[in-house]
């Protein structure tokens, strides 16, 4: 194995370890503030438990939640980076290793043969890898293992274009109301609008990782984000769906152009443990791990 492949593999394992064991400090701070501000004992207790759990995870380098999710990587492959298609195999190998070493829970199920036991399977689709070709010489890797509970409450609808932005906003509120207690709130919400039946979901997933509590660079989108975040919290689902404490910590919208006849909307929701870690690997193998959000 060439040295650079080994560096990418080791980095991917490390990113999975960081993602599942260390909740970004920015999120912890906001959860702490929420705990202080929550008046009801039930909600306060939920947030206290979350925070205590996060500390144990970090101190012992253990997964904060037993559901370490379906493993996903978002890859930005620079034109000048020495590896190309082999990155896929390297990330699959890293997933197998992380399953043993971190450890991660084996979460890849073959409907006919059962659990594959190594988080890899079927037909090369899992781990999920999103490739993007970019300018430059670096490889950017984001590990985003996402649990089943909050994955199950994602929502998708092809709206009639005549319903417009009001219809989109109503759908988001409906999706969060339906999510209720099921996906471990307080939530992070990603909304994708336009593109097509599949792209809106991908945009929604990517929106989860937009800079924390930084509103969109587009003024109109920023206003929609602020309005939706406020209204989602007005639903009053609360921590763990017990009616006290925040419902959502952040909400981002990503948009694409749509077909004249279509208005696709995707809503992707993360539990309080929005686990992710990012690294940039230069063409000569230098690794920079970035834990900010």
């Amino acid at each position: 194995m060439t040295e650079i492949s080994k560096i990418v593999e080791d980095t991917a394992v490390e990113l999975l370890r960081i993602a599942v064991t260390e909740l970004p400090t920015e999120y912890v701070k906001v959860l702490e503030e929420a705990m202080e501000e929550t008046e009801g004992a039930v909600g306060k207790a939920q947030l206290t438990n979350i925070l205590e759990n996060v500390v144990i995870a970090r101190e012992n380098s253990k997964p904060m939640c037993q559901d370490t999710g379906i493993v996903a990587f978002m890859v930005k492959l620079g034109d000048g980076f020495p590896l190309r298609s082999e990155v896929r195999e390297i990330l699959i190998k890293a997933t197998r290793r992380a399953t043993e070493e971190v450890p991660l829970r084996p979460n890849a199920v073959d409907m006919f043969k059962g659990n594959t036991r190594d988080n890899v399977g079927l037909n090369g689709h899992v781990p999920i890898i999103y490739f993007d070709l970019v300018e430059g010489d670096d490889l950017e890797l984001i590990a985003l293992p996402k649990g089943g509970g909050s994955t199950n409450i994602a929502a998708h609808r092809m709206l009639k274009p005549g319903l417009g932005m009001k219809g989109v906003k109503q759908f988001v509120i409906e999706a969060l109301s339906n999510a209720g207690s099921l996906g471990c709130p307080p939530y992070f919400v990603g909304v994708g609008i336009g593109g097509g039946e599949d792209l809106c979901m991908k945009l929604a997933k990517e929106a989860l990782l937009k800079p924390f509590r930084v509103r969109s660079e587009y003024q109109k989108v920023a206003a929609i984000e602020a309005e939706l975040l406020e209204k989602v919290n007005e639903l009053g689902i609360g921590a763990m769906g017990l009616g006290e404490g925040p419902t959502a910590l952040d909400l981002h919208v990503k948009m694409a152009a749509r077909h004249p006849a279509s208005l696709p909307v995707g809503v992707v929701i993360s539990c309080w443990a929005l686990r992710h870690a990012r690294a940039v690997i230069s063409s000569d193998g230098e690794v920079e791990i970035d834990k900010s959000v």
Partner: protein
Amino acid sequence: MDYHLKTPVPEDEIRKLKMGDLVYVTGTVITARDEAHLKALELHEKGEKLPVDFKDVGVFHCGPIMKKVDGEWTVIAAGPTTSARMEIFQDNFIETFRPALIIGKGGMGDRTSKACQEYGCAYGAFTGGAALLAARGIKKVREVHWLEELGMPECLWVYDVEDFGPMIITIDTHGNNMTQDVKEQVTARMEKIMAEMEG
């Protein structure tokens, strides 16, 4: 009120619990999720004996991360999974196996609530994602069943637990269901927000 229960938990102790109470359990807790519920009920229907007895103990909706260290199974992380998935057969399960407590997260619906009322069972909500807090209360892995067939997250893990908690009682034997109450309030607020939404 705070309660420290010991398994086997007599039915009258479960009937004392009220929605909002905090509960800690010492004794036996057995993990079971979708596949294990299904298999247990299927075996029972065929008249076959189960490798575990759920009577008067805690049934934990959990698919843990386990690791074999020096030949012994140890718990790495063991938080609750979304209980709502088990709503389709939990009432049947409670009636058939008569557990004392169902432990999970996210709450359960009317069918489970009714079965709890009828057969003296309660639902304890453990904070979702707090897998290491939960693991702290697990002192020993006593047995494992159906591991080969169902895999680590879905099989039956039998744990010896000590002061496992805190769990908040969200379904009691008196017909109360906290999650359902919140859900109704959320739906009412949603309808209001939707009606007032501007373009």
